């Protein structure tokens, strides 16, 4: 075997080993959590109330809290984010204002989540307490909105950009208005990409702990309204592990979380594949 060929084989082996290592790390974490926690998952665990500060019993309030928080955050963030993306991509040409908005969204995306949490705590929980009810789903959702907005704007913008200009021209040439073109053609065509961004943002909200630690409170009761405090699964996991040391409940909660996140990622990639298929 020549030297060149040998080097080629070594390089191939080296890089494939690194690739396999990455997969192994992921599998190791998932396997470890599942081994520790999957047996904990039962109908009772999912649908009953916790006892002894969460050290025993189920995780139902945390599941409800997670769903409420995700829904509220997305109902606020998705229209704002998609609207901003439509403005950036369809209504303005590149200029100082769009550059500023893009810079702002990028800078916002880089801020550590605990800083969002601190802001949410000072602004929504304390300052706006008469409106938000202090530690509440509303306060946490508004904080969550500031966190996921950059992701939604950027992904929606990319999805709109992926729609070829020839389609816009084709539609306008039929005597449609710009808004008709956006509503009837561009948005539907970009929808899989937009939904991908929203799903990824949902994943972010489900996974976030630090920001909601400061804004959601941590009540173990099932929230009755937006103005009640609550906890998400991630938050519950953190609090149970730190405050009660009930590692079996923590691992059970972690298993539920991982299953949820995996499902969300599968959904996101399914939508993404649909977006690509649409234009090829």
């Amino acid at each position, binding site marked *: 075997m020549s030297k060149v060929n040998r080097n080629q084989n070594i390089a191939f082996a080296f890089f494939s080993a690194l690739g396999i290592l990455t997969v192994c790390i992921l599998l190791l974490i998932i396997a470890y959590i599942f081994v520790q926690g999957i047996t904990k998952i039962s109908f009772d665990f999912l649908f009953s109330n916790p006892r002894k500060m969460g050290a025993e019993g189920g995780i139902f309030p945390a599941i409800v809290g997670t769903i409420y928080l995700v829904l509220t955050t997305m109902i606020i963030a998705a229209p704002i984010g998609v609207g901003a993306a439509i403005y950036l991509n369809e209504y303005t040409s590149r200029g100082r204002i769009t550059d500023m908005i893009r810079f702002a969204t990028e800078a916002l995306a880089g801020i550590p989540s605990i800083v969002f949490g601190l802001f949410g705590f000072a602004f929504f929980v304390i300052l706006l307490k008469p409106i938000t009810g202090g530690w509440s789903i509303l306060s946490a959702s508004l904080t969550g909105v500031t966190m996921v907005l950059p992701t939604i704007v950027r992904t929606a913008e990319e999805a709109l950009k992926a729609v070829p200009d020839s389609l816009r021209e084709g539609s306008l040439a*039929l*005597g449609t208005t710009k808004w008709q073109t956006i509503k009837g053609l561009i948005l539907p065509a970009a929808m899989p990409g937009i939904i991908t961004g929203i799903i990824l943002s949902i994943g972010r909200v489900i996974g976030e702990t630090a920001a909601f630690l400061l804004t959601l409170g941590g009540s173990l009761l099932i929230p009755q309204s937006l103005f009640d405090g609550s906890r998400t699964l991630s938050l519950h996991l953190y609090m149970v592990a730190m405050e009660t040391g009930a590692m079996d409940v923590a691992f059970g909660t972690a298993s539920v979380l991982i299953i949820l996140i995996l499902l969300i990622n599968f959904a996101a990639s399914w939508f993404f594949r649909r977006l690509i298929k649409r234009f090829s």
Partner: protein
Amino acid sequence: MTVIELQRASKSEQGQGGAGDVPQIRSKNLNLFYGDFQALHDISLDVPKNQVTALIGPSGCGKSTFLRTLNRMNDLISGVSITGEVLIGGQNIYDKTVDVVELRKKIGMVFQKPNPFPMSIYDNIAYGPRAHGLKKKSRIMEIVERSLRQAALWDEVKDRLHSSAMGLSGGQQQRLCIARVLAVEPEIVLMDEPTSALDPLATLKVEELVTELKKMYTIVIVTHNMQQAARISDRTAFFLNGKIVEADETAKIFTNPKHKQTNDYISGRFG
């Protein structure tokens, strides 16, 4: 070009009405600038009703740019300014009172690359009429069928109207785009090199279609292909460097051009 094609071209010319017809489109001293660069110089051209007018010339000569002034598609490009007039039905379409959206309903456009929308065949055709307020399903179905028949596509797609238009072949996609334009019932159809992305058989079909469509519509077609201009057009305008060198009946342009540059171009000496 064969002798037969020439005869056919001149015969169709004789068949057309003579003097006295008011042109459907009349551009008067039209100038167009991209910023400081002048892309069109003093274009004056009459386009008669129910005829095919071909715009020919080498790449970058301004023929596509001129075509896009006729339905104001150049409005979409920033930095474009225009002087002069384009009269359609006696109305200057660059007048401030003209509603561009209404104008484009009357003047359809078929593009160089087929641009079907990522939706079903049916929805592609229904798109325009729906946008213009038509809701009744039976009426939409009528329009879909009529438009697809006019575009000679009906028989090929009638059993799969609700499958994606992206699955059609290139030639079928282009005829779909033509049908989509016809569904809006325009008076004029602009075609910007509609066959340049198609294979010879698909090209032939579109050419036959153009000849058929001129009975009902006024057609302006930009083409790179001189044989195509000779085969399907009644009148031809030869563009060079943003100017019209010569515009006349197609038979005259191709047999007896007045200008040397036209002769050089049609005989393939450049372009």
